[in-house]
Every structure is written in C-alpha cells, then in structure tokens.
C-alpha cells in the first residue's frame, strides 16, 4: 500500500468512524445518563434512513427531508420517553431489554407495512453529486466529505453542549445523582426527556445523512446497533469522549481490516473489542 492510498484509506476510516459516532453518542448518552439499555437505538437509525427516503421522494429535496425528519424524530423521542421509557428508570436492565427489543419488532413491522421490504436508493443532492480527482484512477465523492464535515460540526456542538452550557451541567448532574438534582428544584423529568429526544434525533439524523451512501434496506438498524454497542463498550459506558475515540478506532479497524485481510473482514472489530476488554475491562474511558 503506497502513501497515497494509505491516506485515502485513513480518510475512509475516519469518515465511517464519524458516522458511527453520531449513532453511538446517542446510545451512550441514554445509557450513561438515564441508565437505560436501549436496544431500539438501531431502529431510530433505520427510521431516519427510511424518513430520508420517503420524505425526499415527497419533497424532492434531501435537505428538506432532513429538516422535517429532525422535527419528527424529536417528537418521536419525546412521545416514546413520555409513554414508555419514563416507566423504566427504576426497573432492572432485563425489563428494559424486553421492552426495547419489543420496540425493534414493532418498528420493523411498521416499516414493512408502510414502506415495504424493498431496498431503496436515495439520490445524492445535486450540488454534492460530483467527485474530486485524487489520483489518476480514483476520485472522491464530495458528498462523503460533506457528511464528515457535518459529523465533525455535530461532535463539537455536542461537546460544547455537555461541557460548557448550563443545560449540560444539569444533564451531568442528573447522571450522577437523580434525587439530588430533583431536590435542588430542577425538573429532572424534563431533562431526561430532552436527553432521550436528543439521542433519538442523533441516531435518526445519522440514518438520514447516511441514506444516500448506505442505501435503505430492511434490517439496516440491527447491523448498526451491534456495532454501536461495540463502540460503547470499547469507549467506556456513558462516556461521550470515549464514544468518539472508539468510533474512530472501529472505523479505522473495519476499513483497514477489509483491505488487508479481506477473508476475515467481518471479525476484525470484534477481535479489537476482545483485546481492549482484556486490557481494560471497563473500556477506554469511564464516564465524563
């Protein structure tokens, strides 16, 4: 592998890692702060992708679809938290798994009823539908660069929100001691609801922005869910910073694994996870 293609592969890996981070950050937030194991998180990604497909064909514009999609997914998050998840905080993980697994089945069946079981493509918006020539043989699609830029911006915003704002302070406080925050007169239920809606929106947004690149197909949420759990476990449960590092690590391992040992491409990330857990059983970073 020469320097050029190494650099391009590096770019590919980082780009995949950043996308993973969008989904995994929501998962780790919901688990770290609210203590809920949310197996349905992959479904939010799938819902996002299908919204991008349906709304883009309705409105004719992916950006329009994303704007409407964000509003819808925040609403979905708030309704789900209010109706279902708010009842789970005091229950044990087994019951959480039961409910959220049930939700996966419900969402998949709804998807099948509403959109059907076909694989769909989503067109890349016209202004990004061109490529930059990198080498004599290879060009790089601009949409992928745009996607990475959006992911970086969101990661920075998320960091600022959690670390620098008053709301972030309340979220962190709520994570460490729910009762204490409540007795200080803060509306902890509202904070949790916002965090949950944020997590859903992040996953759905990742699905929407990735739709032109990944295409839209049944069961796409499950694959993402598994890899996101790997990210959360490697990064340290509840740590945003850990999720970022772990996402990039997984992105790079997956990319270089596919290229260097194609026969074993599917297992590279799991070997990496096992190795890291042997070295640090609690993950790379513990909660921020």
């Amino acid at each position, binding site marked *: *592998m*020469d320097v*050029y*293609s190494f650099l*391009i*592969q590096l770019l*590919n*890996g980082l*780009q*995949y890692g950043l996308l993973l981070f969008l989904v995994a950050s929501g998962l780790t937030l919901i688990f770290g702060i609210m203590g809920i194991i949310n197996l349905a998180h992959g479904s939010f990604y799938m819902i996002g992708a299908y919204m991008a497909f349906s709304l883009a064909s309705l409105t004719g514009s992916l950006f329009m679809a994303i704007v409407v999609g964000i509003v819808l997914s925040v609403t979905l998050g708030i309704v789900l938290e209010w109706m279902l998840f708010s009842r789970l905080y005091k229950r044990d993980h087994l019951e959480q798994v039961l409910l959220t697994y049930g939700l996966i089945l419900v969402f998949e069946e709804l998807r099948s009823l509403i959109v059907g*079981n*076909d*694989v*769909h*493509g989503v067109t890349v918006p016209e202004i990004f539908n061109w*490529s930059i*020539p990198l*080498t*004599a*043989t*290879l*060009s*790089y*699609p601009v949409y*992928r660069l745009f996607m990475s830029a959006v992911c970086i911006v969101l990661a920075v915003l998320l960091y600022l929100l959690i670390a620098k704002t008053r709301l972030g302070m309340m979220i962190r406080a709520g994570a460490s001691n729910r009762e204490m925050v409540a007795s200080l007169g803060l509306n902890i239920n509202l904070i949790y609801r916002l965090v949950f809606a944020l997590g859903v929106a992040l996953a759905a947004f990742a699905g929407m922005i990735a739709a032109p*690149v*990944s*295409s839209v*197909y049944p069961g796409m949420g499950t*694959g993402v869910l598994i890899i996101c759990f790997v990210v959360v476990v490697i990064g340290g449960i509840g740590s945003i910073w850990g999720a970022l590092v772990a996402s990039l690590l997984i992105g790079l391992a*997956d*990319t*270089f694994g*596919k*290229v260097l040992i*194609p*026969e074993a*491409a*599917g297992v590279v990330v799991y070997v990496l996870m096992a190795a890291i857990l042997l070295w640090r059983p609690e993950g790379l970073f513990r909660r921020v």
Partner: protein
Amino acid sequence: MKPIGSLRRIGAMTAAAMAAGALLLASPALSQQQGKLKVGLMLPYTGTYAALGNAITNGFKLAIEENGGKVAGREIEYFVVDDESDPAKAPENANKLIKRDNVDVMVGTVHSGVALAMAKVARDNNTLLIIPNAGADDITGPLCAANVFRTSFSNSQMGIAMGKVMADQKKKTAVTITWKYAAGEESTGGFKETFEAGGGKVVKELFLPFPQVEFQPLLTEIAALKPDVVYAFFAGGGAVKFVKDYAAAGLNKTIPLVGPGFLTDGTLEAQGDAAQGMLTTLHYADGLNNPKNNAFRAAYMKAYKSEPDVYAVQGYDAAQLLIVGMNAVKGDTGKRAELVAAMGAAKIDSPRGSLALNKGHNPIHDIYLRKVEGKENKYVSVAVKNLTDPPRGCKL
C-alpha cells in the same frame, strides 16, 4: 313372455359384460392417469424476490397452457406456497406440499438457502423437484440427487464464462469483489478458475460481509491495485449501489467493471449512466434472435401484458422439462426411473437457445456476452458455447 324375458336378461347380461369389458379396458388407463397431476409451486410471492417468483410462475403456466393445459394427458392442479425467501420456514413449507398436499412434483425456488432445504426434503421423500432459479453450486454438486433438477444456472457458470472472455481479451490482472457468502464466492471462484487458466492473474479477492454496502475502502484499494479488469458479484440493491459507487469513484474511466448478468439485470433503471457500456455474462440477453425466443416473447406479452425476463424463461423451461419427462412415461409418475432418465436426457428448445442437463442435472447451455446499452443488456456474442460445469462431488 318368457323369450322376451330371456332376451331382456341377455340384453342385461350383454350390457353388464360390455360395461365390465369397458372397465377392464379402462383400468390400465385409470391406473396411469391418476386424475390430476399435482404441482407444488413453492416460490417467493412477497418480499424482495416477489417479482422473480411471479415471473417464474407465469413462465411455468405459459408452457403448460401452450401444451393444451395438460401434461401427458393429465390435468394440472397447482398448490401454491409463498416461501418468503426464508430458509427457516423452508423445511416446513416443503413438507406441507409433500405430506399434506401429496404433490407429484415441487417447483422452486429463488433463494439458494431455501432451495437447499427443499432439495434435502425432496431427497428424503424422493419427491421430484425442479429448481427454476437458485444457483447454489452444491445442489447439482455434492448434494445432487436423481430426483432433483435445475433449469436455471449454477453460480460459478457466469464467472467461468466471463473469466474466459477476459483472458481472451488479453487482460493480465484482475480483482474480484463480492459479499462473503456462498453465491458470491462461487461466482468469483468460477471467474478465477478460467481467467488464470487463460494466462491472467487474480491479484486480489475482496470481500465484505453480506449485505453491507460500504464499498468505499474497497474501491480505494482497487484504485491502488490498478488491475486490468474488476469482476464483481452483487445483486438487487447492492448491485445498484456498487455500480453507482464505482462510477462515482471515477474507476469506470480506467478500469472496466464486468460481472454476471445479475449485476445489471432489472437494475438498469436505477443505475442509469453509471452502468453504460458494462459487459456481463448470462444465459439470456435482450435482443436474442431465435425463433423460439421470438415466439415465447410474443406469447408471454399476449398472456401477461408485460415483457418476460430471464426468470420467466427459467420457469417456462421448468415446465418444458416436466412435460418431456411425463410424455416419456405417458403420464405415469409411478415409473420413476424412466421419468427421471427421460428428464436427465432431455433436449429442450428453450427461449435461451438449446438446453440440456449434465450428470448432476445442471443446465448445459450457451452463456452470452452482453453489453449495457441504454436500458437493455444487448446481446454481443456467445461467450461460451454449451457451457457445462463439471458436477464436482456428485455421485450420480
């Protein structure tokens, strides 16, 4: 009164005797024509492969209709099961057809995993099975059986044909890329076999887990390797995406992308400009000019008001094969050995050209080289005449 009475009696006797005689005469015919021939269609009628299941069914019924709606004088009774392309439900569905409905012959299916399960059930119950699509090599290889036939193709056949074409074009190096599953590995394996036998070299075999479509790292790798040609096996949504990504990465300008026909069949609408000029190999093509195909296309168009595709041809030939076998035993499914022998030796005039079967009951047929022009996979030439793949591991 008496003579009249005896006359009457004689008359009655004669009538009875005649009736008995008729019965006696008829009895061999009765045992032969045990009423209707029961045909079990186990195909996908919902999900991703629904269109394929319907095309196969249409093709099958068209051939039966052209034969007067009967097979060797017996009427047909269809038993239809939607297999949902779900291998987990396959044994139960196949058993239902065999044990509950008592079908004489099973026809199905599209999905290889389901077909493998059907083949096992068919072997265990010694039920006649005709496979009108699923291409898993093993079905007519190590798992072959006297009562299992295939009228479609095996996965390695298209690779074998394309490998030869590329070697003949003096291409020196190639990269193969596919999902890491049986169909993909069989197809790229076939390509490697003939391409290297012809003096080429497969410099790298790339895989990604099914059904992932994140091709970017692999495209980057292909650009770095700069092979003379890339052979890819993908189907459905994956095929659409791969061909588009390949073009978006600018690779199609310098490195030709080739593959089995499934890469561009039924997907050209979605692939658009990205697929133009691509070469693929398949046992059928648009613009195939032979009298049988022209007649078939006209009849299909008339019956179903839509253009037939390769799947309709495979269904049509499944029925043709059944008709040949049943005619040989005059409709008596009891004569299994002769029925199976006649089917195995059948020479079928198929819309694709001539069709025969090898020892493992896998098709021997011409594989065509096709080129994408507009929305069609245009016939270019015969890539391999009468291609037959050795039935590896088959003990028939």
